[in-house]
């Protein structure tokens, strides 16, 4: 094999789903000993393209060459025979099996299964690349990052030479991300081809050697990472000049008051596991309070407890109507909270599973909170339809009309519909969980802008986020959760990413002794 021969050569690949053109005429090369970042907004066809390489989809047209030989990849097994392995956003592991059992699962090796030998081989791979995996640990005992590691080791065990990682850092803390990048570099130095799909620019800068940008399913261009600036990459990705700074107006101090005080809040989930442990903090009017933490640290339970959706073990949640009057929110359901005149809006994490009804159209979704209005036993759709048209218009929702089921909208548009409805209620408190998850740059900035406008109106805004860069740029204060406890509350203007990251993993955030 010549040194210049690329490991994979994609030529003129196109793929459509019905009327949707996911990829148009994409050509690119993937080299050994190189980390390639595939950059693009949501829906730009990054994952589709890689799914064709890993045998999940079959291209409508175009050719794939591996080491200079044309190949047909008709199934994930074919892909594997060519040494291509892909790590998806959702892990495919058996929870009750150990790491080793998961790794050898489905392998058709002749002879008797020798788990000890397999565990030994797993250990060798781990030592070679610097993975931190106990071959005998059960998957259900593992953190998200450990599970991801098992997925990577699984591919290496099977001899993968070309590794594709689909947004691998979405679920990781900054420290875990660093660790992942370190092993990816080791793999690169070992001569493997590594492809990382992402839309996070700082990661592209951090890990990749070369970056290929896709936009609307087409190849836009490629850059050598070392020579490229973040601004340059963004412009290629979005197709025009974009400002990357998130606005953070100072809170209006004149009317500032405590809106909600949470005291000693303890919450257990249905299995009796403590998800929030003695949590106390305040939310003020006219500020954005960020909540940071590894996923599953109690963010969901905290917001749901305030919104009246989560039974509470202990503690109090007080809503201050004005300086004198205070209402207790614990023991209230969403209807009772609304009945007290508290306008509390909530943008939940699971948009289609909790905030909206996927099969209903935009109008009917606008009606979710207001359908009880009116004395008749019948619903009145004229008001919701008007609201739907307003939201579509003002937030620039890309939809054929207000009668389109929200399930057919893209992630960003779904989120605009949800946020639009929640803001239309003119809330005094706005809770949001992962409001920009899965959204492209443009849509994310629309959402930041909406949150800032609410803050300007004196709304107490809570922003649960996973991207620390955004939390640090957007929020006035940041509450860090660690294992259901408050690890600390820091000023968004003065703290650093490292400080918050450490607080996420250890209570109080101190360095290891």
């Amino acid at each position, binding site marked *: 094999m010549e040194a210049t021969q690329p490991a994979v050569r994609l030529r003129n690949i196109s793929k459509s*789903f*019905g*009327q949707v053109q996911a990829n148009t005429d994409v050509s690119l090369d993937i080299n050994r000993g190189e980390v390639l970042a595939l950059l693009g907004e949501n829906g730009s066809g990054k994952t589709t393209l890689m799914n064709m390489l890993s045998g999940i989809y*079959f291209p*409508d*047209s175009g*050719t794939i060459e591996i080491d200079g030989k*044309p190949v*047909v990849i008709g199934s994930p097994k074919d892909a594997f025979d060519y040494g291509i392995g892909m790590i998806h956003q959702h892990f495919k592991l058996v929870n009750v099996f150990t790491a080793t059992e998961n790794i050898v699962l489905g392998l058709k090796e002749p002879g008797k299964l020798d788990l000890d030998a397999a565990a030994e081989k797993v250990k060798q791979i781990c030592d070679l690349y610097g993975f931190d995996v106990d071959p005998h640990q059960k998957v259900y005992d593992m953190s998200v990052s450990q599970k991801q590691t098992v997925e990577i080791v699984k591919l290496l065990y099977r001899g993968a030479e070309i590794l594709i990682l689909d947004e691998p850092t979405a679920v990781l803390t900054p420290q875990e991300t660093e660790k992942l990048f370190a092993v990816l570099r080791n793999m690169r130095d070992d001569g493997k081809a590594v492809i990382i799909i992402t839309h996070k620019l700082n990661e592209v800068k951090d890990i990749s050697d070369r970056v290929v940008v896709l936009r609307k399913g087409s190849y836009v261009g490629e850059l050598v990472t070392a020579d490229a600036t973040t601004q340059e990459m963004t412009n290629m990705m979005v197709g025009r000049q974009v400002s990357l700074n998130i606005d953070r107006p100072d809170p209006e101090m004149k009317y500032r008051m405590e809106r909600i005080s949470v005291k000693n809040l303890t919450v257990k989930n249905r299995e009796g596991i403590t998800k929030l442990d003695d949590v106390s903090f305040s939310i003020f009017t006219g500020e954005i309070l960020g909540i940071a933490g590894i996923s599953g640290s109690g963010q969901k339970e905290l917001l749901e407890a305030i*919104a009246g*959706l989560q039974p509470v073990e202990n503690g109090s949640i007080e809503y201050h109507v004005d300086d004198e009057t205070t209402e207790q929110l614990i023991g209230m*359901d*969403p*209807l009772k909270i*609304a009945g007290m005149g508290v306008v509390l809006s*909530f943008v*939940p994490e*699971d948009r*289609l*599973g*909790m*905030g*909206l*009804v*996927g*099969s*209903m159209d935009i109008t*009917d979704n606008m*009606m*979710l*909170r207001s*359908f*009880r209005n009116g004395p008749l*036993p*019948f*619903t009145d759709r004229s008001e919701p339809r008007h609201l739907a048209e307003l939201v579509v218009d003002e937030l620039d929702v890309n939809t054929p009309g207000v009668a389109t089921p929200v399930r057919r909208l893209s992630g960003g548009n779904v989120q605009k519909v949800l946020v639009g409805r929640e803001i239309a209620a003119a809330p005094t408190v706005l809770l949001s969980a992962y409001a920009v998850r899965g959204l492209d740059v443009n849509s994310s900035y629309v959402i930041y802008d909406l949150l800032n406008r609410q803050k300007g109106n004196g709304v107490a805004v809570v922003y649960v986020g996973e991207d620390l860069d955004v939390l640090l740029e957007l929020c006035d204060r940041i509450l860090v959760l660690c294992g259901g406890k408050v690890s600390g509350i820091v000023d968004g203007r003065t703290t650093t990413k490292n400080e918050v990251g450490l607080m996420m993993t250890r209570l109080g955030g101190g360095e290891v002794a």
Partner: protein
Amino acid sequence: MIHIVKRKEMPFAHAMAIRFGVIGLALIVCGIVTMLTTGLSPIDVYGTMVSGAFGTMRKTWILLQETAILLCVSLALVPAFRMKFWNLGGEGQILIGAFAAAACMITLGNSLPAPVLILVMLATSLLAGGVWALIPAFFKARWNTNETLFTLMMNYVATQLVAYFVIVWEVPKGSGNIGIINQSSEAGWLPTLMHNKYLLIVLVAIALTVAMYVYLNYGKQGYEIAVVGESPNTARYVGIKVNRVIMRTLVISGALCGLVGFLLVAGSAHTLTTSLAGGRGFTAVMVAWLAKFNPFIMVGSSMLLEFMSSGAGEISTIYGLNHSFGDILTGIILFFIIGTEFFITYKVVFSKKGAEQHV
């Protein structure tokens, strides 16, 4: 290479044209099957089926009545189905409603004036059917038990209960039958409208169709049902009391099945047997699914199934064919109807590009 590709949204008229075209296609296939297996002319067989269903005024009215009863059962099931609560207990809920009506006729037949008796029967039938459906709904809401199995099992309980009381009330003793209840006094019998004993049930079915359509599509409760069915978490999030909606909807569903039981006893059969429901609780499931839970389309699907069933009976007597032959024809038609939905949502693409890539 064969690919299955999702279509973009098809215009409604276009989709309906395909659906009707497919029924034509199904009839052709049925005709071929008829010729090959029986040697009869399919045109004759179809003609016999049509005359069996519509041949005389009386036959037409019987078809309408059967359609109306089946439609009522489907309308009873549809609110539960829209909530994704798979109520397979229609059979038992009908039977228990019929049982309640018959019990009133037998025990109160001589003591209450006729209009009061009918009202009492109606109320107890609705109540009995409602309770019969509420039991599985309560368990579902409280402990998330499987409603499909639970409602199904409730059918057997109802059948056994009726079997027991048929023996208690049998006339004459030892016959194993109740016979016609209140034959001489006609107490508890529904009146005939305009000298037509079939008209009342047809009118009830029409009224119920419109009412159910409005309830489900324009009612606040119908909206709640749709939200709970699609996403219980979203329902909780907007303050809908999910458990209450499940139980309320099933009471409605069961009560309407009870109403059908009442209509069967008071309106047509005037007796009680364990087989009174006649499988309608299950046939109605098919009616509702074929119509995608739209009450107006259910009118068509229930009529199609009743037409096929009466036609099957007719050809089996005229040509001496086994009654199952009618079922075969029904099966072919249903196969085509259900199969169309696949082709309306997806298309099959034969591409040569896969072959090119092998080069």
